[in-house]
Every structure is written in C-alpha cells, then in structure tokens.
C-alpha cells in the first residue's frame, strides 16, 4: 500500500447497472479516511429499501433514506426490493449524499435500468388450425413472442371445459415416477453420509414429489420455493463433498432409469422444447390429444420469470383443430415461437 493511500479520502459506491424488475438490487458505499456523519440515499419507485446493514439509526421519508448513525465507520450496505411496472424498461436514479463532519457533502448519482419480459400472442386466422398427421406440420399456428427482456417461463394447458385435452405421455410419467423413487433412495444414503443436511434433503424430496407443476404454485408457495432454491444452491456451494455426492445422486437416479438410447431421445425432446430464445416451455412433453378428425380447444397460459413473479393468466379463445385422422402432437407445435 502506498503511504498516500493511508491518508487520501476514498469512496466507492456500488449499484448494478441493470436488473430484472422484481429482483433484489444490492448497493453499498465504502469509504476511507473521511469523517462521515451521515449518509443519505435518494431513490425512486419501483425501488424501495429492503435491508440496511451497519446502520444504528435511520429513517425513510419521501423516497429518502437517511442513515444518521453508523455502527462501524467506512461502510453502508443496502438491499433494494424492486417490483414490476407497466413499462418494459425503466431507468431509475439513485442519489448518494455522504455528509462529512466538516459540513461538506459528497454527492453522486448511479442509474439502474430495470427490465421485464412480456408475452405477445397473435391468434390464427378465423381461429382455425390444421394438422398434417404424416409430417406433423401445423398450419395456422398461434404466434407467440417475448417482446420484453428476460426469460419467460410459460405453462400451457387445456382449460377444464376444453373439448380437446392435453396429456403427458405415459412413458414420460413412468420415467418421472421411477426417477423420483430412485432419487429418494439416493438422497436417503446422502442423508446418512451428511446428517446435518437431512432437513434440506427432506425439503428437496418434498418438492420433487410435488405432483403440481411449479408454475401452478400460489405466490406464498413460490416464495417458499424461491427461498428453498437459494438455500439449496448456497448449501451445495458451501460443501464440496456434498455437492459431488448430490450431483452423483441425480446422475445415478437418471442412469438407473435411462438407457443411452433414451438419453438420445431426451436430447431430441430437449432440443425441440428450447422453443425460443426468451421463452421456456415448462411442460414441453405434453401433447394435444385430438380424439377425432375435428375438435375444439381452449387453452390457458400461466407465466412466470426468473424471480418467480406471478404474471396475469392468459385465457385464449376457442380454436378449431382439424386433422385427417385422430392424432397426438406436442403442444409446442401449436405455436410459432418468435
């Protein structure tokens, strides 16, 4: 360290430049060789302070956070909660004022762009779709596009009153059942090897066994899942041996249920389920079951994003399906993913 560094006042303000609307945005102020009396942070919606670290007394008034007393000198940590807004992108300014004991103040501004995804759908002409059973070609597909930024995870299902239903292929369901059973066995041995992680392994199993699609969970359950997912990643990263054993447990459970030929088939299915750059289909293996040459279908689309926020459910108008014979085809074929 240079001698000059010991006396030169320095400050460092951190705020990420971009973020997904709905995620926690961190910020901090670090300083050295300055007599700081208080720190003021001015922000705008959709940001609001969530947690403040190293502050003894603070107050929040009119989008102004005033930290009047610090616990230790040299540091303030912050966490902002952000939320969804109507605009797909919004730029928010955050002002930092460091008030010094000599009456002077250092003022700096940082900006963050907050974005979100948004689904856009275009119905087929006259709401009619024709399927060629020989080629699997679908004429008159619904156009679907993410016009915002960030991934959208969508789950498409037939409504209860829909004449045409969706079905998950039986071999896939059997695979899931056997996989979950074998995984349970693997995790049991893991629990014996790592008893302190048993509660987390129990939680993991409970989520794996939950027959519902993740996207069908309510807000409280999603938050619970989100906490669990963060916890799992954190615990895995904190113990090398556990991480290795965890990866092996999944691999073993998969290997027990998957011949190589099956793995290759899954590559094909996985490739086809990568429907679009910014849209992920949560149920890519589900199929439309057209029981006759003609049928009507009503679909609903549930959506979420990378922070598991809930989006408005989309109910689609009735669509007429026509095929020269009864057929099954993957639901993603009904859409033109753009």
């Amino acid at each position, binding site marked *: 360290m240079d001698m000059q560094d010991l006396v030169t006042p320095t400050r460092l303000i*951190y705020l*990420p*430049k*971009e*973020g*997904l609307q709905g*995620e*926690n*945005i*961190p910020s*901090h102020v*670090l300083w050295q060789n300055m007599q700081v009396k208080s720190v003021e942070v001015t922000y705008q919606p959709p940001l609001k302070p969530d947690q403040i*670290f*190293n502050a003894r007394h603070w107050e929040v008034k009119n989008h102004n956070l005033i930290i009047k007393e610090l*616990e*230790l000198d*040299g*540091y303030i*940590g912050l*966490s902002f909660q952000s939320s969804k807004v109507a605009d797909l992108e919004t730029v928010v300014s955050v002002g930092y004022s460091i008030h010094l004991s000599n009456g002077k103040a250092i003022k700096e501004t940082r900006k963050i762009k907050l*974005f979100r995804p948004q689904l856009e759908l275009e119905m087929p002409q006259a709401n009619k779709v024709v399927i060629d059973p020989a080629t699997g070609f679908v004429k008159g597909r619904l156009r679907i596009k993410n016009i915002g*930024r*960030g*991934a959208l*995870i969508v789950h498409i299902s037939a409504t209860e009153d829909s004449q045409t239903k969706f079905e998950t292929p039986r071999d896939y369901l059997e*695979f*899931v059942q056997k*996989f979950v059973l074998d995984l349970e066995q693997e995790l049991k041995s893991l629990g014996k090897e790592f008893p*302190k*992680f048993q509660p987390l392994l129990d939680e993991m199993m409970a989520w794996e066994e939950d027959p519902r*699609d*993740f996207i069908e969970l309510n807000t409280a359950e999603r938050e619970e*899942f989100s906490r669990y*997912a963060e916890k799992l*990643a*954190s*615990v*895995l*990263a*904190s*113990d*090398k041996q556990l*991480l290795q054993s965890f990866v092996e447990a*999944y691999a073993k459970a998969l290997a027990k249920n*998957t011949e190589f*030929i099956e*793995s*290759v*088939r*899954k*590559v*094909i299915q*996985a*490739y086809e389920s*990568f429907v679009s*750059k910014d849209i*992920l289909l*949560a149920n890519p293996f589900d199929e439309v079951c057209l029981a006759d040459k003609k049928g009507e279908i009503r679909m609903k689309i549930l959506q979420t994003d*990378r*922070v598991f926020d809930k989006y408005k459910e989309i109910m689609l108008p009735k669509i007429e399906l026509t095929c020269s014979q009864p057929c099954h085809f993957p639901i993603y074929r009904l859409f033109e993913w753009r």
Partner: protein
Amino acid sequence: MFSAMPFPDLPTIRMEVNSMDVDKAKSLFEVAEYVRKLWDKIPKTRILNQEATINVPESIVEYSLAVRIPHNFRTIRKVIEISAPSIIRVSASSLHPLPRTVREAVKKTVYEDGRVTYALFPELLPPDSDLISVSISYSIDDPLLLDDLVSRTKAHEPSGTEKNEYWMHAALKHPKVLRDKFGVFDLRDVDVTVDVGVHNELKTTIPPGFIRRLKRFFAVMGETDPRKQYAAIPELRRLAREKTAGKEFKILVDLESLFMPGKFAKYIDVIKDFRYSYCYKGKECYELPIEIIPKKMNVISRADLTLEKPAADGVLVYKNGLFTDAVKEVMSGA
C-alpha cells in the same frame, strides 16, 4: 494421536460445556466464547487480541488468541484443557521474544467414550516466552449460518452490451457484532451461485438437420412393419450421405463433455472481487434434469469479506461466442 492417559495430578483449568452449551458450541460464537472465558479465568494472563477466519467451503472457523502470560505461568498452571465436540485442531505458538510454533505443547487425547480433549501444557512452552498465540479450528454444523452473516445477491438475467454478464454481490450484515466478538474477522470464499442459461447457444448452433436425422433413425428403429422398414431404405441411404452421418454417437458424447466442469470453465470469466470456483449442470425448477444437454449451468464464484472490506461485487462473463464456436466444432464431427 495420543491414546487415553490420565493427566498428572496437578491443578487443571477445565471448563466443560454442558449439553446445552455443547449444542451452542457448534455455532460460530460459542466455541470462541468458551475458549476466551477459559483464558479469562486464568489469573494474570491477558488477551491482547483475537481473530477469526471462516473458511466457507470447508465450514471451518480458525480462531486465534494472542495472550500475554506471566513469568510464573509454567508453574501456576500445569494443564489447560480445551474440549468441545466441534473442535478439530488446537495449536500453540510463542510470539515473543522469538516467534516459533510449539507443537509439542498441545496434546490430543481420545477417551474411551469417544470424547476428545486438547491439553496445553504450559511447561512445554519456551521458558522465556511471555506472549503466546493459541489457535483453535472448529467446524460449523449449521449449513445456513452464512445467510445470517452475509447478504448475497446475483443477477437472474444477463446484462451488459452483449447480454452475457451477470453481476454478483456479497455484503456483511452485522460487521459490528463480528468486530465485538472477534476483533479481526475474515470470511474466506463466500459463494454466490449464478444460473448461466446455455439453451440459446445450443438451439441456434445444433443444426436442425442433425436432430431430424436422429429422429428419423429412431422412427425406423421403432418400426415393426418390415414393409415400412423396407420403404424407409432410400431415405436412410440419403441420410447416410449427410456430412456428419455415422458420427452421431461421437457428437453426442463430445457435446455432453462440453458441460464437464473443467471444460465449461473455459467459457467463464469472473472479474473484480469474485473469482471462479466450480460449475455443475443445472436444471430448471420445473423439469427433471436433462443429462446430455442442460438448459443452464450453475456457476459458483467466491469472494472474501473482511471488516475492512465488508462488501464485494463482481461480474461473471459468459463467453457465449466461444461456447457457440465449441458447439459448432463438436457438431462438425471433427
């Protein structure tokens, strides 16, 4: 390791942690407090400073005390016994007048009931030593302790001009408590796990023709009607003339190997306060893992936090262009 043996019949400082305290001793503060109180009870010694370092991946705390000892220390105390279930190592050093480790001064004893104690024998310290350091390593049993100490956040979506950067952040929540408890406190290798989406590179780089060929092979293999199998021969002949025909197995194996931690690490750069640690195949929360081509990789990066630098920020750069080139090379069958 020493087998169980009785200590000489001399004055012994012993502070056992009772069953409730034993539970507490597993956490971060209690073992350190137990050791500090043990020294506080020894007359005429003075703790000059203390420091703690948590090694996050190993879940181990290294706690050290610097203690001023009186000249007659070797005669007034014969044995100082340190015992708590989570303690895995105890060592002592003389700091003054000459710094040196005094391994022989600490002896580990395992009793028949499995209890382990560490005994520090003052008489084995250098005769002229007036300042010693005692270091205790103990494990933390609470896998969620780190969340109580550190706020960790990460970008869920990439940003930057090429949309391939993920920010990461870690900050101490209660630095004052740590300073009050330990004086000097270091947190080594705090982890943040970022989900790096890879499906787009796979979707845009794996040629649809390759997938069509695989699908057609499967369709013909699954066909039980010999007439239909015969009818498929011209198409199979045509497919067999395609550039990478016959190399499907090699291509899939090579593709899968791109996601091995050692290989995928080449496509990750971690800058600023964080550094790359490890990666593994991730799975979306709504699906079972796909063993050959995952949709995302979980990348663990690490940073150190101290009371002098209680916050760290970093950027994970996913070199998607290079990764796309690697997928292209695999798909060429070379």
